[in-house]
């Protein structure tokens, strides 16, 4: 039994084990976030509706990535990989949209 504990400790040393308490807190935060975003969508805020919905979605996604996926406790390399993915995705969206938006401006 003690040997098993020791082994478990060794594994813990190799990488961080997040405690279930954190997971429960994150779960509650995500559920609250969902309730909040649905509630907000029922109120007519005009221009702000999509922004609030996407902001809450991003907050929820960030919680999942940081805690459920453990990026908060991971190496810089993992953080960089996640960052590279987001950066490339934003490049694709923003530069494509830039073309579509500026098409409406007409010629010089």
């Amino acid at each position, binding site marked *: 039994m003690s040997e098993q504990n020791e082994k478990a400790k060794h594994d813990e040393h190799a990488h961080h084990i997040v405690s279930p308490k954190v997971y429960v807190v994150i779960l509650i935060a995500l559920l609250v976030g969902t309730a909040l975003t649905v509630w907000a969508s029922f109120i007519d805020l005009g221009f702000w509706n999509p922004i609030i919905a996407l902001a809450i979605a991003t907050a929820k996604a960030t919680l999942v990535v940081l805690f459920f996926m453990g990026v908060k406790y991971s190496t810089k*390399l993992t953080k960089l990989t996640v960052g*590279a*993915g987001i950066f*490339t995705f934003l*490049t*694709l969206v923003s*530069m*494509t949209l*830039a*073309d*579509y938006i*500026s*098409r*409406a*401006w007409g*010629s*010089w």
Partner: protein
Amino acid sequence: MSATIVSLPDQSTARIPKMNYLSKENGLLSWLLTGDHKRIAILYLISLSFFFFIGGALAGLIRLELLTPQADLMATDTYNKVFTMHGVIMIFFFLVPSVPATLGNFLIPLMIGAKDLALPKVNLLSWYLYIAGGTLAIYTMATGGVDTGWTFTTPLSTHYVNTNVLTTGLAVFIAGFSSIFTGLNFIVTIHKMRCPGMTWFRLPLFVWAHYAASILMVLATPVVAIAIVLVALERTLGIGVFDPTKGGDPLLFQHLFWFYSHPAVYIMILPGMGVISETISTFSRKRVFGYTAVAFSSVAIAVFGFFVWAHHMFIMGISNYAVLVFSLLTMLVAVPSAIKIFNWTFTLYKGSITFETPMLYTFGFMGLFTIGGLTGVFLGTSGTDIHLTETYFIVAHFHFVMVGGMLMAFLAGIHFWWPKMTGRMYPEKISQLAAVITFIGFNFTFFPQFILGTLGMPRRYASYPPEFQVLNVFSTAGATILGVGYLLPVLYLTWSLKYGAIAGNNPWQATGLEWQIQSPPLTENFTVTPIMDHEAYDYEWLENQNLAKEKSKEVTHAG
């Protein structure tokens, strides 16, 4: 010609080591189920060569048709199919995997002192995906082909052609995943499998170039995959995303397609640049000038590569402002490419240059790639692009970069590492001749196309006005010479497998880790984990090694 540096062991006593990766196991299954990166590289080399010669035969047909102004050899829609299949096979089944899947696969673990790639099974899977995609491409060809051009331009591909767009699309989709898995494997390997002492700035530049290309494979390829899925859905169900009659925008397809396909040209050329860094250093006996700059220029090319894709769409109706921005950004890519060319040239300066076959190909690369790159600046400038695009100028430009650049680099690499892969040398004189023939044939084929393009001959037509015939005859004649230049290596390299001189561990006296072990290497590469204690391209260190070896020999003789 200056003194050669090739140092072969005494042929009367030399032997190929009994234990090596080729001799470890026999039988077809030991190859088809292997996890050994070196064997998978050989599998790739064989299958790639097969696709190269299919693509080459199609190129031959195109040139033969263009010998005369009329479309007389084949019907015009057959011609469309021939150039489409030439493009699809050459790009997705030869150029993209060429250097990474063969040389990269074989050498990256050896260069960084690892026993294998990090994910051997994924490596094998990626070969099977490549074969599956390739088989589908061949099936497409056998059952009528496809005539959209390799770009699958919508709405032509979704609505107007009745050829095998779906199977070709699936073939490219599958090949794309093969390429994603190769890139993913390389990145993980380079990060996690380096031997002790192998810091990032001790890595050979070949590894840096592959790292940069792998980033592109991983980040860009999925976008073309989804674009192809949407084309398939549009074609089968008419979902309307790219259909202008339903409000869809065909240009959106081009955005998604070129978001991959522009970085894809860097996926093709970067590994070739890695090869050139190795050969130019070895045959100048000098450390690559500005190692750090060359290393970072690879990464810079990869990063800038993501911001320039719309320069393929200048005349297609994107906004004027986007044209301006993308045109300016395109100029940025010229900077890191020029850094590479200048640094290689400085490496030659005061080096002890010798002219072995790989070096001849390297010189070919430098000249042709420079021309190809500079004409790219003409095309990136939106004003000249409007005149030159969709003409033979484009065809000449990308063939200078891809065939003159990449294929020369591929051949340089194959000749350079052939002794390591097989343990045997090829006949030097014939191979030098082949390199020269390739260079001459290449220029005869593609230089006239620059002139044809500026004169206004459009690409993708089977017929042309008679006044263009002289230059087209030049081009076709050159293609014949080029064909000989490509056939020769197949013959003498195959011959050398059995009859070539025994190469020994380090015939070129190169410094890389891969040259310090036996040729061909053991299955596990290194018997003990190596420790790297010097910079890359340290020829002084190599000399001291040789001196120490001789001394120990003398000691044993005296004893």
